[in-house]
């Protein structure tokens, strides 16, 4: 039989490049990263000694790490819950046809296509302690006096708020697009039935619309979580973890620890710390998304 017809052989041939690519370029380095986390390796490469879970234990002893762990969870959860809620509201609002929808969609897509390193620098400027346009406006409206105003990136709580804001800003478009897809996947008949059956806006939303877009929102949320857990660019550009490590997240801490501090093993341990939890959560969510009722 020709290859083009032989199912078993064909399936392997079609799959092989992807598996090879991932094994070589992600699998290999990933295994290395795990090995790093179990050794005392530093950037300079000396002392490749196996130290077991020492790096992980050391991390747990470090208050900065514990803070970063808490921050990561907080950052990911708060930003993703906000994204989910806001994206749902926005997607529902965007379902209606109206004039200028094209433009609105364009504007809403912008944060997603902007190179994020640059977009975040834009926010850095918006949050600047002296030139913040937000503060200028607040002063102009006399919400704040001429001498005191919020220092967005300088006070631990505000800094967290700022970082979450930017993260929401950057992930909202994708989540909205995904949810729009989910919404448009619900047959019109279901909405009509709910309406004829007497459901008012909120019953309709919470008992019909939201349960039905749940699978796709799980996927959207999963993406958001993965970005929030593994990407450090927002923290890196806006606060570098400051003020005094109160906005440090695991990804940025791992980066500073390994690349700036030189402790490759310790950095890898920090970065991989949540991996088992994340993997379990991701598998669970994907499973739920695929099993959930979809019309």
């Amino acid at each position, binding site marked *: 039989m020709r290859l083009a017809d032989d199912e078993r052989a064909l399936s392997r041939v079609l799959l092989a490049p992807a598996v090879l690519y991932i094994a070589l370029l992600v699998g290999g380095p990933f295994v290395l990263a795990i090995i790093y986390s179990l050794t005392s390796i530093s950037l300079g490469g000396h002392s490749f000694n196996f130290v077991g879970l020492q790096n992980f234990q050391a991390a747990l002893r470090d208050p900065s790490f514990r803070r970063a762990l808490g921050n990561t969870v907080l950052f990911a959860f708060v930003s993703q819950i906000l994204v989910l809620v806001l994206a749902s509201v926005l997607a529902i609002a965007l379902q209606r046809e109206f004039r200028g929808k094209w433009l609105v969609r364009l504007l809403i897509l912008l944060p997603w296509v902007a190179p994020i390193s640059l977009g975040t620098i834009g926010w850095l400027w918006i949050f600047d302690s002296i030139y913040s346009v937000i503060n200028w406006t607040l002063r102009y409206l006399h919400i704040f006096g001429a001498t005191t105003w919020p220092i967005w990136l300088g006070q631990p709580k505000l800094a967290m708020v700022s970082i979450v804001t930017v993260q929401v800003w950057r992930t909202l478009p994708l989540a909205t697009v995904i949810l729009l897809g989910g919404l448009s996947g619900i*047959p019109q*008949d*279901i909405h*009509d*039935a*709910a*309406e*004829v*059956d*007497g*459901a*008012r806006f909120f*019953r309709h939303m919470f*008992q*019909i619309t939201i*349960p*039905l877009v*749940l699978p796709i929102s799980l996927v959207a949320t999963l993406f958001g979580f993965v970005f929030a857990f593994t990407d450090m660019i927002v923290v890196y550009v806006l606060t570098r973890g400051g003020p005094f490590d109160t906005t440090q997240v695991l990804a940025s801490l791992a980066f500073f620890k390994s690349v700036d501090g030189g402790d490759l093993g310790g950095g890898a341990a920090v970065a991989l710390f949540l991996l088992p939890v994340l993997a379990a959560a991701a598998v669970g969510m994907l499973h739920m998304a695929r099993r*959930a*009722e*979809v*019309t």
Partner: protein
Amino acid sequence: MATVETKNIRKVFQEHTAVDGVDLQTREGEFLVLLGPSGCGKTTLLRMIAGLERQTSGDILIGGRVVNEMPPRERKIAMVFQSYALYPHMTVAKNIAFPLKAQGAEPKTIDARVKTAASMFGIERLLQRKPRQLSGGERQRVALARAMVREPDVFLLDEPLSNLDAKLRHMARDELQQFQRRLKTTTVYVTHDQVEAMGLGDRIAVMSAGKVRQLGRPQEVYDDPADTFVAGFLGSPPMQFFENDGALVGFRAENLLPKAVYSSNEPLVSFWYRVTRVEDLGADRLLYGSLRDLAPDTKMIVNLPSTIHVPLTPGEAYEFACKVNDLKFFDPKTGLRIPSRPLRGKA
């Protein structure tokens, strides 16, 4: 109990007029069928009655009250959708309970009424299942149960049988009619299937291009079509036409029989008919052929019941006839019925 009335109702989508000035009035407890080919505006009309679409102009009255400004939930209607629109994430029980919950009914009442509805349709054992675990017929029953559970004034049904296979459809039709007769709830039913319409409707409104062409009892609509559209839409095969003396003359395939079958004192019109092919269908014989003389080379199909045993050989011409009353005359320009008149020319 209530009637549904539409007064000069119109619906215009951008350029295209879907419903073009429809006046309809149901009777109390009546089963009214909206029949027409797809795109004729019947579903749009139904959705306007439901309140799912806003009419461009005209009024809708339910129980004598103008409901133009009311959302669907206030119109005391229930609707069954073509797809049934069961909520896929809810069990059957929850689906049926949903309209009651939306009304804010007591949990006790809800339980009791869900049970009653379920037993009425024989779906008690399905209550804990989800819609995707049901067969087509079961889904339809759940949809009906969900529609009737809140005891609406009016049922609206949008082609509820079209997703069933032929065998199920017969049974479902029967169940549906029995159920309606029992509840005596005014029902508006949309379909494109004339058999359903004839079988179910107390009256049928035949629609085409956004207008109601004829409203009447099934037999009326069949026997006395108001225009060529109705005549041509109903019946299988539909009414056939030939031109004669500036009029379109129509008759149904079962009305043309060999002349010998008739008793001699009936007023008949006779034709020479050349048979080209015979299809024996068991209960009927279908003849394919053409008329001669009166309307040369007009292809005609004739439906002979198997009780008529006249031998017919393809290629031969025979003398056929139909009763004068069975010939319907139409204006070829407007398509409307005109009074009967004698045929001209040689028979």
